[in-house]
């Protein structure tokens, strides 16, 4: 798996001339760096910038490096960053299997791809769910499918944008454990934005207060 670390090299984001964020950091493979701070401070804007979606009206300077690659030179679809939002955002026009297959790199026969989808579903305790409508899943099931969809795309780093804030308490612990375990297992450098101090504590990595 990935062994490159994710580096934010003097990233500065401004909005209409006002400085918002100024940050330098390095995240090792398997490490989870937590960004905390009040809303409106621009945490999600930072993640959007790293993923390549800086909203209109914002300007950013500095470099985002994954290993030796300058991500700023690549379009979003070639940055290989796994992005998890607080909503699972499963494509409503595809079934569960279709959502997972959307994340998988192309190649392989139809059958191989189907087998891979089924194995992935088995892996998150949702065996036999391939043909289900995502609209019929529970909140926890959707969150797991969303995570698996991201992992199947074989990302080189993860960006988590308050990924657990919409889950209820019991589910939240379970999802935290699942997500963090996968991140460590795959050795993915991870940036997490959150309001919830428990998220940061469970992640066990460094914390930056913005």
């Amino acid at each position, binding site marked *: 798996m990935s062994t490159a670390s994710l580096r934010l090299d003097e990233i500065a984001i401004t909005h209409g001339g006002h400085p918002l964020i100024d940050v330098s950091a390095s995240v090792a493979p398997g490490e989870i760096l937590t960004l905390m701070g009040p809303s409106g401070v621009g945490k999600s804007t930072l993640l959007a910038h790293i993923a390549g979606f800086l909203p209109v009206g914002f300007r950013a300077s500095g470099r985002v490096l994954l290993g030796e690659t300058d991500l700023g030179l690549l379009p979003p679809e070639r940055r290989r960053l796994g992005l998890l939002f607080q909503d699972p955002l499963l494509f*409503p026009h595809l079934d569960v299997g279709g959502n997972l297959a959307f994340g998988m790199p192309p190649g392989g026969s139809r059958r191989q791809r189907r087998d891979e989808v089924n194995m992935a579903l088995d892996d998150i305790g949702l065996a036999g769910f391939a043909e289900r*409508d995502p609209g019929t899943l529970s909140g926890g099931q959707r969150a797991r499918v969303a995570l698996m969809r991201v992992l199947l795309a074989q990302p080189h780093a993860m960006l988590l944008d308050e990924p657990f804030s919409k889950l209820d308490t019991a589910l939240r612990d379970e999802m935290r454990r699942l997500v963090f375990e996968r991140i460590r297992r795959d050795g993915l450098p991870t940036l997490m934005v959150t309001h919830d101090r428990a998220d940061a504590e469970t992640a066990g990595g460094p914390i930056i207060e913005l």
Partner: protein
Amino acid sequence: MPYFVTGIRVVPVITLALLILPVLLGLAGVVAPAFGWHPALGGEAWTLVHWQALGNTTGLDDMIRLSLFTGLASALATFGIVALCLATFLETRAFGTIRRLLSPLLAVPHAAAAIGLAFLLTPSGLASRLVSPWLSGWSHPPDYLFPGDEAGLALTLGLTLKEIPFLLLMSLAALPQCRAGERLMMARSLGYGRINGFLKGVMPALYPLIRLPLYAIIVFATANIEVAMILGPSTPPPLAVAVVRWLGDPDLTMRFQAAAGALLQIGVTAGALLIWWLGERLVSRLGAGWLRDGHRRRGERLGRGLGTLMTWLAIGVLVAALAGLILWSLAGYWPFPDAWPAPLTLHAWQQATMGIGGPLSNTVTIGLAATGIALVLTLGCLEAETHRRRPLSAGAQLILYLPLLVPQVAFLQGLVQWQAQVGLNAGWPAVTLGHALFVLPYTFLSLAESYRRQDPRWRQVAATLGASPASVFLRIRLPMLAAPILVAGAVGFAVSIGQYLPTLLLGAGRLTTLTTEAVNLASGGDRRLTAVYALYQLALPALGFALATTLPRLWWRHRRQMLSGDAA
């Protein structure tokens, strides 16, 4: 695939060029002949004789007066009724019903609505039959001239009825933008009645948003052909109808006069817009004090009464007109004053099957092709906005509505003059492109909101999963927006079916569609056959809308969120 992004960014440029060029070329093509220059017709010297001939036309004053009066009166009546309807019913339970009744009426082609109205109000029509002889005492059809009255009242009525659904739907789209619900709630909690609250609290913000559609209504109403041919007076007719007659005159020199007439029509339409604009100034000047006078319930009951009456009357007349068409199409012998045709017969329908094949297939193929072109360009423009990360500029948006803001008869005629000059073939491709010109603004209007409002995170998720821009467009955006795209297609198809003048002029009169046939039949005497054609003309858009609403339901029957609207 960078080709996709490069390619898609060119689409707005192509689209705007496709919209501007025909209009400009058309206008140029009408200016030169108006001043005598048209070598193909033997005009090789600049002259003003055609303007003199136009000036000497008997009844020219009446033609201009008719165009101005019917255009402005119908626009004013439409605006008044829609404003009162919204003020009376907004945020009430009845509003949902009104909306469901009026929305499909938008798809009724102008010609079909006008024919239905004519059959309803004519001396031997359904309306006079219903009150005869028990109330009116008529045992023979009474002797009044309506429709076709000299003042143009029938024409005004027809235009008003047909424009009400259009303006209402435009307003409904604009209401959320000006936060009408909150404004109304605020006004009412301050003690304002429903009517006063709406007119003082919502209308000042709503009006600027529906100004462009209103201008389009004025342009259409001052220069329309088919409604005026069916409901308007004939000697003299409104100016635009006269211009079309001159164009069709066997004497080719009349073409020069038609060109001059087309320029005059532009002047008349511009004059109507100017009068309306001055009216706007006046109202905003006079209304400023009224907005602040603090009266909360003045005229409340009158307003509500009028709003209720007008709304239901408009719906009632439209529905009765359409129901009347069905009766006429099934009527055999139907003596006055019977309100119901005694033996119902399918004779007219059988008679129609003989000649309807050609017009029907022309209508459908032109409609599908024009809608296809318009949809591709609309989607391209909207997707380009995503990649340019800003919406089309205000100027570009105005250009999208350009074909609706210039009188059809003016620039279409210019295009025909070019056809003659350059020797281009009139026929199916020219007509289809002509239709696409008028379909495009509607597909864009219909689709833009849902396309722009789609949550950007859907495409962000897809992109981070490695999907290229082309793949995001084809695999995420198009399927997720399938329902609004189909509705936009149905709107476009309905607009194409309703087109009369582009078919007539660009097809050189040789290409017949349901609409041209229905308008031709309407001037003849066979009401039964006319009714059948009008009903066919009406059934096609209805079928389009039925498909557009049921297909996604079938398609996504196992996709709960696609049906609940979460995708848009």
